[in-house]
């Protein structure tokens, strides 16, 4: 497991691409990246531009970058206060089921929420971790030869106003919320990270080991 602190989206994309290749060749073990991003809107393969409700120049004025990615899913927002997890794992033969993988990621987030006193659950047909009709955790995954990348994002205490600029994941009529809003008070990200790590390990039946933080970007 690697905790990377706050990372620009582009750097994270490069890092993931590298790690996926290394995992495919067996050079590294299964790895979970935990981080936060600078404010950014990302569009998945199935994204529709009309789900970004204001034009790009306006976004840039607010300091929000826009990225098109190779992950599944529609459009979503990442920013400080939102914990992002990118598991780079090779799904073993018994777990090669994308539905199951997505459900497992939901499980990780649901359990972490429970630890903090928030009852989250699933809505059939709508991927993610939900509290009532509001989404607290989102998922977008990419798989190449059964090695995963991208992953999940849990709204711990982000600024939720940028979500008004998009139709998150293309799902209208359902709002977005955060642990902070649900609990009515600040929730430090550092409190949530270990919960996520532990639950990830449990759900995926591993033991987490902290790995040294490798420098990002640049040729290595």
């Amino acid at each position, binding site marked *: 497991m690697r905790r990377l602190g706050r990372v620009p989206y582009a750097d994270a994309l490069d890092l993931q691409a590298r790690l996926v290749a290394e995992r495919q060749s067996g050079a590294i073990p299964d790895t979970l990246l935990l981080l936060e991003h600078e404010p950014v809107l990302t569009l*998945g*393969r*199935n994204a*529709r*531009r009309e789900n970004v409700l204001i034009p790009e120049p306006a976004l840039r004025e607010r300091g929000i970058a826009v990225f098109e990615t*190779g*992950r*599944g*899913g529609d459009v979503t927002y990442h920013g400080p206060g939102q914990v992002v997890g990118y598991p780079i794992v090779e799904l073993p033969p018994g777990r*090669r*089921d*994308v*539905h*199951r*993988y*997505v459900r497992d990621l939901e499980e990780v987030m649901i359990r972490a929420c429970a630890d903090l006193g928030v009852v989250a659950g699933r809505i059939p047909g709508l*991927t993610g971790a939900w509290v009532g009709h509001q989404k607290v955790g989102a*998922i*977008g*995954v*990419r*798989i*190449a*030869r059964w090695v995963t990348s991208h992953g999940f994002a849990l709204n711990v205490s982000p600024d939720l106003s940028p979500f008004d600029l998009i139709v998150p994941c293309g799902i209208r009529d359902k709002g977005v919320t955060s642990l902070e809003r649900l609990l009515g008070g600040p929730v430090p990200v550092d409190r949530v990270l270990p919960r996520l790590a532990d639950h990830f390990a449990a759900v995926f039946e591993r033991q987490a080991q902290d790995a040294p933080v490798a420098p990002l970007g640049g040729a290595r």
Partner: protein
Amino acid sequence: MTDVIMPQMGESIAEGTVTKWMKAVGDTVERDEPLFEISTDKVDAEIPAPASGILTEIRVQPGTTVSINTVVAVIGAAAAASAAPPAPAPQPPSPVVPAPPAAAPPAPNPAVPTAAPVSAPAAAPVAPPPAPAAPRPPAPATLPARPTPPALAAPALVPAPVAPAAVPAPPPIAPPAAQAAPVVPPPPAPPAARDDARPQADMSVDELRQTRSSPVVRRIAAEHNVDLNAVTGTGISGRVTKQDILTHLEGRTASAPPAADVPAPAALGATAVAPAVPVVAPYRPGERVEIIPMSPIRKRTAEHMVLSKRISAHVSTVWEVDMTRVDHLRQKYRQAYQERSNVKLTYLPFIVKATIDALKAIPVLNSSVEGESIVFKKDIHMGLAVALDWGLIVPVVRNAEEKNLLGIAKAVNDLAERARTKKLKVDEVQGGTFTITNPGVFGSLFGTPIINQPQVAILGIGTIEKRPVVRDDAIAIRSMAYLSLTFDHRIVDGSDADRFMAHVKKGLQEFDENAL
């Protein structure tokens, strides 16, 4: 030859959507190299090539969803001679053995000189680059050039092996005619030089197929003086098949008869919906686009709209109606209807009632055309077009002529509610004899709706708003609406249409309060 299939990404997953091809037809692929990407709702997966070779065929385009195990592409053997055993072919082996004249060598294989013993696997040292252009077959003296027969095991009639950029085999379901319409990638060997002056011995198999097709096609072309170059070919190598040329001839003579959307068997001349329609490519390569497959309801709507236009002689007439009285009655009785019968009283029931009365007076508007007869419908089953998020449907109020205004209002409310909640039964959206649609709800002044086959007319209601009008040489403010009637001029003349509309207009402007 290896089939590339849509993988199953999980136990409960039955289909996948191709989102991107990383390789193009004709490219070399290495085993395990990323070949294409698929997606399910939140997961995108990169799928590696199952074998090395040349990508000879892409059968499923990005944006298409197919069931798992569907063959989405085919990888041909790379450099081996024709006798190379096929790549791990999971299916039962093919005793498919072509008659020698027809045999096509697998993809980039130039004809191994005739002596190549059929049973010697990969014996020939010939390892050509994947040449898309004509493999030169040996030229026996007088016969058209025929490539040497492949090994027993090679299924030679599969369209794929012909040349790298093979035409994806059209799905056998629709008659070839209907396939003339979708965008068909250009045939492999450039057909530009369909120059019959060249000696046949110099032509590749592809070229022979494109220029000379088959005996029956040549015969029909000669009999009817048709230039094969002018006919769209849906067969292997892009050749013109018998069905293609028959379809072409059909299109040349009469217009295609209005046919049901059920594909007709390819009996002589029996082409159904689409005579060979020239295709305009919807986008150019490199253009930024997003391809989203049509939902079933969208497909059906698309087909029906085009079909209706081909069947009926569409003419529209627009009438201005003073809705003030209806407005007044509506206000007066709205609460009572709500309280007594829990029914929302909108404009629509009034319009439906007036329409029914007009249909009784001018019954040709409530009929259908069968061949050379007019079928007058004794009952009035009123269709009401409803625009939902996911598409357009037309629930039907059956025997509307038996209902009073309250009954109509109830039926309208009920159908709209159940349409929105997807609780309509199949027979509730069928069997209408007349349709009313409401373009005005979105603000349109009036529309020119398309007739709902097999009916012969459709009434569109424009937006109802207050406008200044002249009454008794003074300006008054009235609730006005434009009502447009599209009718089928095959059996409804302008006079019928206008009499009908005059009746509707009068019925609304002088609505009988006793009906409420």
